[in-house]
């Protein structure tokens, strides 16, 4: 018998993989940042699903999710501000244009 929380955990791991795919394959900087946000949200979903197995939902998981959402917002703000600066330098959001650094 599949419990509801197991479905949520499965969905969360699928969404993490989708997010990593987005970060790794997309050429647009905005889409890369969206990929990061997808991973953040799906880890939050994972926490909530694992915390809601008992009679009552665990407050620890919920507070962890609230904090990680706040941190995710901070990271997104920094990422978007760097993105604006990239646009000022290159006139484009294409990551293929950001290849001036050597390996």
């Amino acid at each position, binding site marked *: 018998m599949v419990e509801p929380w197991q479905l949520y955990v499965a969905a969360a791991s699928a969404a993490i993989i989708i997010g990593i795919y987005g970060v790794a394959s997309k050429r647009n900087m905005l889409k890369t940042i969206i990929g990061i946000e997808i991973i953040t949200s799906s880890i939050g979903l*994972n926490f909530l699903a694992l915390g809601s197995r008992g009679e009552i939902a665990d407050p620890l998981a919920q507070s962890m999710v609230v904090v990680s959402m706040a941190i995710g917002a901070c*990271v997104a703000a920094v990422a978007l501000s760097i993105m604006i600066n990239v646009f000022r330098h290159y006139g484009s959001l294409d990551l293929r244009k*950001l290849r001036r650094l050597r390996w």
Partner: protein
Amino acid sequence: MEIPLLVQPLVILFSTAVLTPLIDIVGKQAKAEKIRDIFAIAGFLAAFYSLMNLYWAISSTGPQTYILGTFGVPAGGVQLTADLLSVYMALIFCGIGLLVAIYSVRYMEVDSGLDKYYALLLTLVAGMIGVAFSGDFFNLYVFWEIMCISSYTLVSFRKYRWEPVEAGFKYLVMSTVGSLLALYAISLLYGFTGTVNLKQLSTMVSSGQISASPLSLYFTIGMIITGFGVTASMVPLHTWLPDAHPAAPSSISAMLSGVVIKTGVYAICRSLFTIFSPASFDYGTVLMIFGILTMTVANLMALMQRDIKRLLAYSSIVNIGYILTGVGIGAYALSHYSSSPKLATPIAIFALMGAMFHILNHAIGKGLLFLCSGCFVHEAKTRDIPELEGIGRKMTWTGTSLSIGLLALAGVPPLSGFWSKLFIILAGFSLPEDSFMKSISILVVFNSIFAASYYLWLMQRIMLKEPKPKIAGAVEAPASMLLPIVILAALTVAIGIWPGGIISLAESAGRALLGG
């Protein structure tokens, strides 16, 4: 109300960070802009002083714990814990932060927005100290992200150039995905046990009262190593480092290379050794193999560099390889010889002592080298090694300190880097019948000889060649920039000649990692 000793450094650093922009506004109106720099330095000094007090308290009465808030019995709550390892790391972080702040007074004076610079530097150090003091994954993650966000912003601080912006974005994407993988591992551990407290996780995992299979626990270990390994710049997750460290201002490069990447190593060690007892989980082999891979790849890449800061950045990756190998030898000995703990425990403590000692030596040495290269960049306005040839003759103090730092990292006795490398290698040779450990140590020896070659090559280019006409006008850096450099160089020599006190400190840190 008296603030507990454990929370004092964090309170001091965060409140100084908040107040610095306000002091800057006051200082601008009073036409005394440097007051903000002095205020930030005073904050670092006060935090360092309270950390020293904390160190004396812990070494006399044992680890301290402070509970910030609680969710009831099963969850554990948000708690700060400090044992000797935490306070050892925190002292390194705060000490390098203090010297970098002193250096920045003159080095950064041409830039604008310095109130934000000092505030971010303070939150960076506060985040690292918070990571070191975390007793559970909840605030470990929060402090981790405080540290990471400050360092992204500091890397792309000079946003009017293309290089910092580009390197900052690369760093942000890689490091954020890494932190999120670590958070995923934390959520899995929470799912297995229902708690995020390190001590409770440790008792639940070691007593076997959890519903997880060994495979899923190994998956979690892999996620932790990968997630925190991005910040620790393990190969193949290192590609952000050689871009981000040269692009940052030199003072920030010294911070990043000296201490921020050590936070990654600390987080790996702390979470693995505390939760998963090395006697029952074999992650030492993985750490050793990745350590060797890290130092070999980075050594080969370092040889190809023309940019002095890129070369130093690759050499940081090499040194992370030494530290990971040292930690790995300790875990490997404990897991493969768990039937005879009398044999394995001294070897593990010896190897961990070497790794902890190398963390200190590399923090001092690489901080020194990046600050020296910052002086060269400040004078010559270039990072190209062929153009910098002979500049050490024009800037005698900086050049001599650079040579001391290079020799120390190359492992020349009696400088500090010699001892820690010796301990890591000797720990690998301590079981002659174990051919795997022996071959790992032989590879470490080869790699450190190989690394010495390009350190000496760099020293010969900087110190012995005739200066080019382009840099003929270079003069010695100002005194407030030389002061941290000379302090670090003196520390390198002093630790090399009298290693005894630091060795016992590093040994007690290693013992604390193994839980007592």
